[in-house]
């Protein structure tokens, strides 16, 4: 595939993606996927470190009692995203610089806003995962593969959730049912498998937007053609394909998952498309 020749430049582009962009992508994927995805532990710890730095920075500035001249933020610091690890050391220098020369309140409030938005992404990401674990607690606890996708703390949470749910069902329903019908995972003794464990529906569809020209590619047994001239292309692919191993290589580089709301919003902007049918 010709698009794979761009691997080097694409890889370079990847490395430059800020942690906030990575977090945003992880957040989007988590929102759109029906099952729980792999926890990105290094990303989350990096983001938290940077948040700590920003918090300490803004706090120290608030404590300053001076009205100083405006200190223009250097170009290297992108105000729309938390800087990636390579730039972290700069933060500490900035701290000292600012402590010496002072800074305008407006700049500080911009940092604060940035901090808030990053915090929201992080919180929402963790919350989404907790809610998914909650919803499919028994299914997740019984699958080693799914358990391996959780962080340590999430695993503990999943275990308590499963216990709580089982206890609740036993107390209210199962203890009152006759012997042989009182299992929480099976309908009765004559069931050949665990048939009362709710599972996420994996064959739903997700919207994907291409980031660059993908051309023809194959996902399992379906060959699709996603081209991207000057316009983005919005495609609908089934979620089993979106996160299957063969699609993972393609996903980050060539397309990104968009949430249902984003897809509707994007389609609304295109002439001649009615989104009312999609809702």
């Amino acid at each position, binding site marked *: 595939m010709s698009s794979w020749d761009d691997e080097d430049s694409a890889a370079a582009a990847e490395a430059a993606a800020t942690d906030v962009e990575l977090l945003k992508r992880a957040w989007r994927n988590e929102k759109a996927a029906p099952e729980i995805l792999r926890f990105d532990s290094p990303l989350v710890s990096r983001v938290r470190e940077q948040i700590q730095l920003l918090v300490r920075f803004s706090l120290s500035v608030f404590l300053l009692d001076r009205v100083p001249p405006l200190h223009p933020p250097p170009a290297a610091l992108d105000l729309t995203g938390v800087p990636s690890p390579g730039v972290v050391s700069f933060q500490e220098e900035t701290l000292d610089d600012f402590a010496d020369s002072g800074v305008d309140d407006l700049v500080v409030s911009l940092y604060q806003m940035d901090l*808030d938005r990053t*915090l929201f992404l992080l919180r929402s990401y*963790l919350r989404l995962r907790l809610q998914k674990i909650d919803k499919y607690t028994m299914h997740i606890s019984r699958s080693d593969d799914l358990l391996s996708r959780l962080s340590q703390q999430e695993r503990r949470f999943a275990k308590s959730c499963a216990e709580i749910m089982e206890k609740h069902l036993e107390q209210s329903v199962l203890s009152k*049912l006759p012997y042989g019908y009182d299992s929480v995972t099976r309908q009765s003794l004559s069931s050949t498998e665990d048939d009362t464990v709710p599972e996420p529906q994996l064959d739903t569809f997700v919207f994907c937007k291409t980031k660059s020209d993908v051309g023809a590619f194959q996902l399992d047994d379906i060959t699709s053609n996603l081209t991207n001239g000057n316009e983005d292309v919005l495609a609908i692919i089934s979620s089993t394909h979106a996160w299957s191993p063969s699609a993972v290589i393609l996903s980050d580089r060539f397309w990104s998952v968009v949430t249902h709301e984003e897809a509707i919003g994007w389609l609304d902007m295109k002439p001649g498309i009615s989104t009312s049918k999609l809702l």
Partner: protein
Amino acid sequence: MTGLSAFWIEHFVLCRSGIPKCHRGFRRRMYGRRASQLLKEIDSSEAGQLAPFNSDVFDQVIRECNEHNSQFQSLIRKMVEQNLDIETTRNEDHYGAAIHHLSLLRNKRCLMAYMYNRAEVIQSFRWKVGPVLPHDIQEKLHFSEKEYFKNHSAAIKSYISEMDIDLTVDMVPPKDTYIQVRVLEDIGEVSLGDHSVSLTKNSLHFLRRTDAEQFISQGLMEEFLE
């Protein structure tokens, strides 16, 4: 248990769908009907809302289950007494037992679905309402559901303290760092960050969004929009 004979399938299906006049008397004894009432209740309530726990119908379904079980047991016993092989014999007792077994299973599935779906709504309460439920919601809960809520909140709390990040704030994407709020009830002196604020009724304040959120979700403050 493999297939039922055509007669029994017809009989069973006829009872569940259209009922011819001569069979009207069966309506009261139609299996699984009460259980589907529970499901209809779940279906008709709005997303995120709970109807009061229907203990009447719930208990009736449990009773039905136990009745099905005793009928099932007696039919099996009858076959055993006649020295028939339970696994392979296909007589009316076998099919009768099959119907009782399947009806019991359906009732069990309905009951579990009822509890499970309600539990999902209760889970959402922790995020939407908070760690303590107001009285009018508490009234609608079965005692096991109240316990479930408590345990669930505790599990979330322990995750939050392990991760050292509060997940109960910031429920909507932030627009402004600071918002103007009007205090609805007397809260008193509260220390926020590095200074303390006196939150008296009807006073207006310019607070950080994250600080104000907890009060807003409890209904003690509201956002003041000009």
